[in-house]
């Protein structure tokens, strides 16, 4: 399939998109925190991949290659958003942040708590530096192994583990503040 895609067969590439779309979306959502941004980033990821198919020599896995493109796309979007100062929109979106799927049997109180908790986690993850955030998202959202993350980001295995450790400590502190604020 990859071979056909490399030769420019659009149907073959469509099959690749179909197989990897959900995972790339999960990664983008974890990085960006919003569904709309995640969808745009996913689309841009596959467009970039299609344009750069000729550069893919097959030395790495397809998944690692797509991940690398997706991470770069997400970081680029965030930099652009920062430059444009889209904080107002973010606040608005945050207020109306929808939770896609909630267990029907959950009580309203529980639901509200979950929503708040999820929002806090989302904020905490979004506030992480990009290098830490991408490791957390790839580990938590896509459940990649440490070695797979190291291959995708082209960094040593020990670096992946130390980044994740640091990210967890920062998230712990941020969520602790949220917990303290909640208890008040």
């Amino acid at each position, binding site marked *: 399939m990859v071979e056909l895609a490399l030769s420019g067969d659009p149907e073959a590439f469509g099959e690749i998109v179909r197989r990897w779309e959900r995972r790339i979306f999960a990664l983008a959502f974890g990085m960006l925190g919003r569904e709309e941004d995640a969808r745009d980033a996913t689309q841009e990821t596959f467009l970039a991949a299609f344009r750069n198919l000729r550069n893919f020599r097959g030395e790495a896995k397809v998944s690692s290659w797509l991940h690398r493109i997706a991470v770069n796309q997400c970081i680029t979007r965030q930099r652009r958003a920062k430059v444009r100062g889209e904080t107002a929109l973010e606040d608005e979106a945050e207020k109306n942040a929808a939770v896609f799927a909630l267990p029907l049997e959950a009580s309203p109180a529980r639901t509200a708590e*979950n929503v708040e*908790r999820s929002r806090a986690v989302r904020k905490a993850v979004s506030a992480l530096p990009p290098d830490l955030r991408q490791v957390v998202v790839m580990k938590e959202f896509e459940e990649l192994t440490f070695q797979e993350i190291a291959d995708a980001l082209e960094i040593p295995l020990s670096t992946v583990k130390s980044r994740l450790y640091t990210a967890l400590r920062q*998230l712990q502190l941020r969520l602790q503040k949220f917990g303290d604020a909640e208890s008040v």
Partner: protein
Amino acid sequence: MHEVKQRPACHRAEDLVTYLYGEASEADALDFSKHLEQCDACGSEFGVFNQVHESILTWRNEALGAAFDPRAIAIDSAVESNQFVRHERKLSALAALREFFTVSPPWLQGATAFAALLLLVFGVTMLFRLSSKPAEVVNNNTQERRYTQQEVKAEVDSAVQKTRDEMAKQTTSPSILNNEKPTPNRPQLAINQQSRAGRSHGLSRQERQQLAADLRLTNPAEEEELQLALPEQDQQRPNQ
């Protein structure tokens, strides 16, 4: 909020993370679980990190749907992508060749096939020539040996005859008639003072051998094998 980059409380921070996400081997997991019981810092960090991990998973499942199972997709995709990559690596040269023949015009395909055929024929011809070369060398050596004795004998005979003729000319001079010994100035003749039975008029056996060597017709080692037959009249003349 400023970035918080604190040093790990314990030197086994990486092992903690590996253990937390279930990627430690059985032996390493057992070893670290014992360490957790002994190390308060790791013990408390493990508990906190587990809560953070659970919170992120909850957020993920709520955001993407509880049915979202990245590992299920990952396994299928990894297997297929590995196969694709392996398959792609295996066939890359073959695929490139196939693609070349697919996209190239008929004349180019024909030219490529013809060039390949020429190369094959050239290779076979070179191989055949290399294998037949040693036989030719052997044949040349035997040819040289075949003619050695006969030709040398003929050449020596003619040289001897020539010398005799010269000697015959000199016999008309008084010195020769008086049985004087030939002057030492004749470079081609070696004077042999020793008498031998059957010695020829002008040339002794040694002289003949010397003459043959001078004419470079024989190897010194082969001289003994040669038997030079001289005319009878030379033998009848008195030995000087």
